């Protein structure tokens, strides 16, 4: 029952967010701030994760390719496919759900319990639009950029790990990367990333906005935001794969 109530409240919240934007000048300033907070500040962690993720995928693939009938370039091909189709969009989003989701939920939750949201409402400002819309737009604009960097760095990590451990040559790895390439794979990854960005920001904002109580409840909201965002990401991942790839 509680889940159904929350789903209803979530969609009502979305309706309010997109109902009436505040002044364009204010929105633009807030958008720039959010791009920095949500986007630019997430780059370092995304880069580190991507390089090591690519390295591990390549090594594990190479370690399991002991059949002599399989061409050597298969390692590059599998590394590319798994990175673009699954690891970069999904794993990266799960990591960002932890980093950004908890940040958003605690920021908005603290504003709620310290009456800052009430102050906005009393002034006649649509607090949801003012606080959440710039975050949604910033994440939808910047997450695909992070994804592209992540794919590039993952593949670089894969190359470094294979070449440094002497498992394959640069030429063979690059041949694998270029084999059976489909543009649709990148489009699929970008669509997933945009959906996940929306899920992370709106779910975290929901838990933050409807926080009741004090500091302990802000922490609880923050945890719930991360857990729920992660679950919703995995569910969306399943359905998007079903709809787009099959």
């Amino acid at each position, binding site marked *: 029952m509680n889940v159904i109530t929350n789903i209803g409240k979530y969609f009502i919240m979305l309706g309010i967010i997109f*109902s009436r934007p505040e002044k364009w000048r204010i929105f633009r300033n807030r958008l720039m701030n959010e791009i920095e907070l949500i986007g630019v500040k997430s780059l370092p962690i995304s880069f580190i994760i991507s390089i090591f993720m690519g390295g591990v995928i390549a090594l594990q693939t190479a370690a399991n390719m002991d059949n002599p009938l399989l061409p050597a370039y298969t390692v590059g091909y599998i590394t590319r496919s798994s990175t673009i189709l699954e690891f970069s969009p999904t794993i990266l989003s799960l990591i960002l759900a932890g980093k950004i989701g908890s940040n958003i939920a605690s920021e908005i939750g603290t504003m709620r319990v310290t009456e*800052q949201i*009430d102050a906005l*409402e*009393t*002034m006649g*400002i649509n607090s949801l639009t003012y606080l959440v819309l710039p975050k949604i737009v910033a994440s939808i604009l910047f997450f695909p950029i992070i994804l592209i960097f992540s794919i590039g760095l993952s593949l670089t990590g894969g190359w470094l790990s294979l070449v440094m451990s002497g498992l394959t040559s640069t030429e063979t790895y690059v041949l694998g990367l270029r084999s059976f390439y489909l543009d649709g794979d990148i489009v699929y990854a970008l669509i997933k990333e945009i959906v996940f960005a929306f899920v992370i920001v709106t779910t975290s904002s929901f838990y933050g906005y409807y926080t009741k109580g004090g500091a302990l409840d802000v922490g609880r909201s923050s945890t719930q935001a991360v857990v729920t965002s992660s679950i919703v990401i995995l569910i969306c991942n399943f359905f998007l794969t079903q709809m787009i790839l099959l």
Partner: protein
Amino acid sequence: MIEVVNVNKSFGENKVLDDISTKFETGKVNMIIGQSGQGKSVLAKCIVGLHEVDHGCVLYDGRNFSELEGYDRREIRKEIGMLFQGSALFDSMTVEKNIMFPLSMLTNMTKKEMQIRADFCLERVNLSGKNKLLPSECSGGMQKRIAIARAISMKPKYLFCDEPNSGLDPKTSIVIDNLIREITHEYGITTVVITHDMNSVIEIGDNIVFIHEGKNWWNGGRKDIITTDNPEINSFVYASQFMKDIKVSMQEKLK
């Protein structure tokens, strides 16, 4: 003038406000007093629209606020200033930006005009030159004064103060009380103060509403509260022996 007409509010089975009617007059400091959990803050939140009333209505100079929805309330809300219990300053903004915030969101003033208005409001609350401080760098009393400056930046017709003295020492409380009284009389604002602080009530309360069990139990002025025989008020106001002694001496003075 703000009129509260037959307002009822429940949270689930719990009836918090029971058919409350009262008037808050213009140019006066109107006070809502009562024990904790009797519905003072809920009443204030119903009046400013943070809670929706179940029955009844709130009229701002004859305009039915409860009938309006969402964006249509904005015109009346622009005329409301509110001082929250914890000040509710935006901690990521400097003092100056906090005061300029409603101006930038709700008016078409230029940056220079907003700056002049912010400086004026800060001067009015005796905080000139504190523009660039962050709220976290200010004391509790300063934060309250900044919140008052923000509340009056839009030249409100109605000012709400939710427990303005909570967490303040007696001397700073008097500063805040005097500021509220001065602003109310100077600008002819309808001010509504929710408080537990009997010192404030006796000091600045022009019109006092005592809420008990969700009802408007008693209405009167600050002199009336000293002389009233209402047992609920007496047990609330004169809860300590010290206050009882003060009452006796004040009644003797009045005679």
